């Protein structure tokens, strides 16, 4: 009951002690539930083939890195590093493009009055809600006809557009927070509008650029649906490669989890770097 209002006082006494213990227990339980699947993924990647499907499950074992070795160096065709590299190329290109184009549009929407400004801003935001699976058929045919199937270009363009909605909306908020006087002063100093954008406004929203870049990178890195349809072969990204495992009858769980771990951990590290603007980014500035 008393947790209804966040308690800001230092609590003393037996009753609060018991209450705090209960809070810790509940929090740890939830954290445990959150971490358990990740623990399973990492430990399974370090087990032998026999241990991965033993009953009862093996909890104590000597870790072995054979699965990582297999995933990276021993494989019939391409090995995991090829697909990790594809993911890296697509992620970096599409995030850079989305942030750059998004920053331009955001600045245009935040600083210039023109008819339809509001409609354009809302339209751009509303594309965040477009269900990817609803667009997959026409986009597949468009990509096929332009001869870009199984290329990184197709994925880069699609991911750029996917990220533009929230990048533009969030950066628009950041630009609106800059006092207009700073830019007016620059205008008086003889800067052109473009110079003000590039040299005055952009540096001032650096935290916003960082946050949107990292969020774009996370979305592009994790995206599966478009990747599986548009680039199923040589240009496949890591989630597509990962999905390929589940198609085989005898799943090599160790190797599967090793690739999964390599696909997930880089993003975890990213998250820790993001912390400060995570909420603002995920809710397009509605909550911060």
């Amino acid at each position, binding site marked *: 009951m008393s947790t209804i*209002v966040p308690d800001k006082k230092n609590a003393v006494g037996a009753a609060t002690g018991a209450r705090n213990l209960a809070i810790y227990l509940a*929090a740890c339980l939830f954290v445990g539930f959150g971490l358990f699947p990740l623990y399973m993924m990492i430990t399974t990647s370090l087990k032998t083939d026999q241990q991965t499907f033993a*009953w009862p499950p093996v909890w104590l074992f000597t870790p072995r890195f054979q699965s990582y070795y297999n995933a990276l160096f021993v494989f019939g065709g391409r090995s995991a590093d090829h697909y990790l590299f594809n993911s890296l190329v697509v992620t970096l290109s599409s995030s850079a493009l989305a942030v750059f184009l998004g920053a331009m*549009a955001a600045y245009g929407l935040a600083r210039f009055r023109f008819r339809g400004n509001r409609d354009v801003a809302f339209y751009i935001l509303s594309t965040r809600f477009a269900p990817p699976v609803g667009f997959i*058929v026409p986009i597949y045919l468009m990509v096929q006809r332009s001869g870009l199937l199984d290329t990184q270009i197709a994925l880069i363009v699609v991911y750029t*557009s996917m990220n533009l909605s929230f990048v533009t909306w969030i950066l628009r908020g950041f630009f609106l927070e800059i006092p207009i006087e700073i830019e007016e002063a620059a205008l008086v100093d003889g800067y052109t509008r473009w110079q003000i954008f590039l040299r005055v406004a952009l540096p001032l929203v650096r935290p916003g650029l960082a946050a949107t870049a990292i969020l774009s990178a996370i979305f592009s890195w994790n995206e599966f649906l478009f990747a599986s349809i548009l680039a199923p072969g040589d240009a496949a990204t890591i989630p597509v490669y990962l*999905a390929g495992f589940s198609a085989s009858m005898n799943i090599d769980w160790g190797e599967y989890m090793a690739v999964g771990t390599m696909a997930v951990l880089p993003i975890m590290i990213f998250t820790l770097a993001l912390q400060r603007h995570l909420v603002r980014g995920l809710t397009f500035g509605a*909550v911060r």
Partner: protein
Amino acid sequence: MAASKRADRRTALLLIAPAMLVLVAINIYPFIYALYISLHTFTLGRPTPPRYIGWSNYRDLLDDDRFINSLWVSFKFVAIAAAVEFLVGFALAFLFSAKLRGMATLRKLAILPIMVMPLASGLIWFYIFNENFGAMNWFAFLLGAPHRIPFLTDGKLAILSLVLADAWQWTPFVMLVMFAALQAIPEYVYEAAKMDGLTPWQTFWRVTLPLLRSAIWVVLVLRVVDAFRMIELIYLMTRGGPGGATETLSWYIYSTGFLDQDLGSAAAEAVVMIIAVSIIAQIFVRRLNYGAAT
């Protein structure tokens, strides 16, 4: 002055045009193209050109049991998942607001699942739910289950297993957003409530909840829309089975288009989905405060 205004307008246009160009190419044009395809018979990988058939693809949808079923499954999944994620996440936001030592660290650990690649999360849960050697069955055994539980191969259980995997990833998201919204409420609001003699329960209903309204709104819409589009967990864990029990609209469109290769019908289903989601999105977007620098 007039000249500089015209120059301003040109600058604005140049700034916005590239982004709009990308969105027209990847959002507006494909939607129109989907409408066009949906009026044709169109089979993937067959050389015969698409043939115009009017609204047949849409009329067929009304008689298509799988389509009707997929709407129902989608509704069930979205309703249960969004409700569980919201209620648990909201409660946890209060829990994690407790000013106790180590809480900040626990919070950081709690939100880690948000960033996991959805396909990888499907992979992990597929392993955990395995009927023969999965950890979930081991826990069930420890709790005294008389036999193995078919988490993914029983119709009723499969959808709940998907909800659990989805909730694992997104409850922390609700918690994180609601926690941030709670922190944004200034201390004096609670002090005033206390001075007015409100009980904690009254404070929650009359003070806290109204102040959280916009955050609740954002979180709910995002969870509903994203649960509706979710496809990765189904792809890895159930592939729509058993017997269509987990065949959501997303999965049905995917399988009509790229497993059955019937692009015309898939496009018709897609148009229905896009319109449904657009309505939800419009309601939401209209409510966002446009003027404020948020």
